[in-house]
């Protein structure tokens, strides 16, 4: 099957004062198109850093990242942004909605950046899909955590991405709301046939994906397929 994400020999080091802190070391793995893929590990194991690198939000010290057929190190900042805009969707633990935009405007941003004419109608359609058809004009501060994450879900799917990165999508939600959000995420993902890379502490959630990559201390502990594959 075609690979949508290829990581080879990745290393990331941060400088803190005079000290060098290695966050990721010798990371290599691949994600197939349409696959659901989870990255698990304890806090500080480098999960979020890895996700950021995969999505081209930061640059590694060494190693190669190939996303949707593009080697990220060959792209400049604007080309990376364009790739994200066309092929990538994001969901963050703390929702990361633009506080100054309404729900509808938040969802339409990726489409607007592409210059899509029907951004508003598509955004409204997606908000209805996530059950927020009646909250389109509300600002994030006027929504509950669960509602904010549903807006984030709608935004993540608005540009019909090939790959979706989710960083602890239920981390800030109670169990019941979290479960609803995951259900929705998996449904939308299935309908759209998107590749899903999800970072989680929740091993039950990880078990619902097709492949699990375990990180510890910045290194890969295991990379195994699950019975769902």
């Amino acid at each position, binding site marked *: 099957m075609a690979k949508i994400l290829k990581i080879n020999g990745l290393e990331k080091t941060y400088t803190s004062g005079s000290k060098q802190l290695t966050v990721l070391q010798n990371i290599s793995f691949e994600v197939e198109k349409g696959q659901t893929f989870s990255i698990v590990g304890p806090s500080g194991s480098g999960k*979020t*850093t890895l996700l*950021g690198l995969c*999505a081209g*939000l*930061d*640059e590694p010290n060494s190693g190669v990242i190939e996303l949707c057929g593009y080697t990220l190190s060959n792209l400049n*900042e*604007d080309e990376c*942004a*364009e*790739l*994200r*805009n*066309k092929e*990538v969707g*994001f969901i*963050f*633990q*703390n929702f*990361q909605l*633009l*506080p*100054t*935009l309404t729900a509808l*405007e938040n969802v339409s*941003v*990726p489409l*607007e*950046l*592409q*210059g899509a*004419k029907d*951004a*508003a109608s598509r955004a409204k359609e997606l908000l209805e899909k996530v059950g927020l058809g009646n909250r389109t004009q509300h*600002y994030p*501060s*006027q929504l509950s955590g669960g509602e904010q994450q549903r807006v984030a879900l709608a*935004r993540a799917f608005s*540009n019909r991405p090939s790959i979706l990165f989710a960083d602890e999508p239920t981390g800030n939600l109670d169990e019941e709301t979290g479960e609803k959000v995951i259900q929705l995420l998996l449904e939308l993902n299935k309908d759209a046939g998107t590749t899903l890379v999800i970072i989680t502490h929740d091993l039950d959630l990880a078990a619902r994906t097709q492949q699990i990559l375990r990180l510890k201390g910045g290194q890969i502990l295991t990379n195994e397929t699950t019975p769902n594959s």
Partner: protein
Amino acid sequence: MAWRDAKASRVRLLLFMASIILGIAAVVSIQLFGDNLKNNIQLQSKSLMGADYIIDTKQVPTQRAQEIIDSLQPDASEVNFVSMASFPNNEGTKLVRIRGLQGKFPFYGELETQPIEAASQYQSSGGALVDATLLLQYNIKPGDSIKIGEISLPITGALKAIPGNTAISTSVAPLVIIPQRFIEDTKLLQFGSRREYQFYYHQPQVDLVRLEAQLQPLLAVEEADLDTHTSTSSRLGRRYDNVGSFLNLTAFIALLLGCVGIASSVNIYIKEKIKAIAILKCLGASRKQSFLIFLIQIAGIGILGGFIGAALGVGLQELFPYILKEFLPFDLQLSISPQPILMGVFLGLVMSVLFALVPLLRTWYVSPLEVLRFSGDTLTESKNARRIAIGIILVFLYGFSFWLLKDWLFALAFMLGVLVSFALLAGTAILTIKLVKNFFPKTAQFTTRQSLLNLSRPNNQTVVLLVAIGLGTFLISTLYFTKDILLDKTEIDTSSKSANLIILDVQPDQIGEVAETFKSNDLPVLDNIPLVTMRMHSIKNKLVNKLRTDSTTQVKEWILNHEFRTTYRSELIASEEIAEGEWVASQSESDFVQISISDNLAKDAHLSLGDSIVFNVQGVLMETVVKSIRKVDWANLQLNFTIVFPEGVLEKAPQFNVLTTYAATEETSAVLQRDLVKKFPNVSVIDLRQVYTVVEDILDKVSWIINFMAFFSIFTGIIVLIGSVRTSKYQRIKESVLLRTLGAKNKQILTITALEYLFLGVLGSLIGILLALVSSFLLAFFVFKESFVPSLVPFLVFLPGISLLVVVIGLSNIREVLKSSPLEVLRKSA
């Protein structure tokens, strides 16, 4: 706790402080300077006059006046008048004020000359002291000669300063000092010449108050006046007090603008602190404790800002003597008095706390529940507390304005003016934002739409930014337009070939020859105006002599002592129109004489149609009645008259004439002046082109001072702008990073930000310029009574300049976005 919390937000708190520093510096420097000026005037009061007291009169002293003058034994005397002088070396001619001095004047202060010894030698050597700038302009040196009337005198030295004179006061007619004994030989004091006699007394032991009380009434009857050094200096003090009040108000506006900036920044600051306040309350902090944490922070900022502002003010006041040099009649010695500095610190504390009070009150109403569920909108505030806070601000503003102006009505008018300006700026800003929000095309490009809609987002500071930008632009544009109106008023219309050379003091037997001289220079005689001097003998059957001593009279004093220069003609001229009554073109001598008076004379003398005036026309009493009142445009540089007689009455009275002509170039004008001065030493020539240059120069200097003050507001506006931009910095970075994460390119982020600030800059400066246009139009219409054609400079220079500045400040805010990794920022906000 206040300190610990402040440490974490110190950059932002420092910016709040910066908003008020300039305003305080301006107020303190002007207060200090004012104090110094008053002290200097008091200390130097004798050297301002050069004597203990003076008796002056605008005519040859009457016998009674001369008796009084002589009985007091004057130590020096002077006769001064305006005349033409010429320099034989290069044939240059110039209108000058001749001061013929006798005795060792000045007794206090110094006659500063170059060479220094010229001051003490000119009397014995029989030379002239000539204004130093005039010598420079005409390239003349001490040792050359000057021709005044019929005589030539060697120039002993350049005159740099004489007590009581300012550079501005002698700019039209520079001073030439000569020994009084030569005045008669000049043959310039002929009939009709305007002159002033001054008698200087050096009598330090005399009780000036008693002397003034005793002699002033006696001298007034004789058309003379007694001035003591104390009364003169207190008059001067009052004059500078008025200027000081105006400068203080402009400084106060800068301070107010800074305070609005503080209010807005603190508002956002407190909103961001709500979660922290809620946590503190959860941990057991009382309302008072949490309120005090932030109150102490703001008070600390205020006090520190007050100190820094006061220190800056002390430094700034050193600049004032240089800025005001041309307007000051003495050298200023500066010292530092404690009161203005204490006031600066007090202002810093009170103004910052007062203006931060409304947003600070929010801390009182923060519920601990905010920890569990944050929404900025659930805050409830007591409307009463808010109203009380706003009430206190208004009372303080009024109190401070009253303290500055010492007049409750002016203070009220100033406060209302400021409130209306702020409200208009804020109102226009809000309206425009609403219009943009509701009517901006939804189909427009994302970047454009996003940038404009950012202006109406929650937590936006659009209004305060627009007020800051608008007020700054409003101030400089109003100054610019007003200067334009004033210059327009004095501008000589070169295209219409109206008179630009006025020849004064032409005796009747010289008219033909003067006209001939015009002709030989190919110049036309545009006007030949006869002038008859007279005084009022009685007004509405009340003797002027009695009116002078009548404390209940409403007739203004100047009328009772004035020597009127009147004319007679059959037609109205362009600069006047009939406001009331009927114009009489001519009449026979035997009739009751029907005259026309100007509206200002009618007002000051309480005269209306049909009222009678008896004039003393050089010894002959003439009964007249007011037949018409004219509205006269005095600013129009034409020969205007307060009193005009019909033809057929004054033709035989002793008179002299004024002739006017139009010279197309400065060279033609100079040649004619040379010719005239050579042939008719008694005539004086006023070159309106030169007068215009002087007026322009004075306006330039005045506007420089006003601009200097306006720049406090503008700089404060910029600091408020930087403060506001900085306050929203983190939010902006986060938004831009998110946009970049979602695929926005650098260009798109830059465009969104640049357009947003461009819109703010253009809108703010445009509102400012438009308001300035309206206020200038009102000024032109109601105050200057002049048509107003606005200059394009504010639109072509101020608008793009200020907009660009705003864009640069705005873009500097997102520099970090373009530099930092999105992941880093996203992690920070996690």
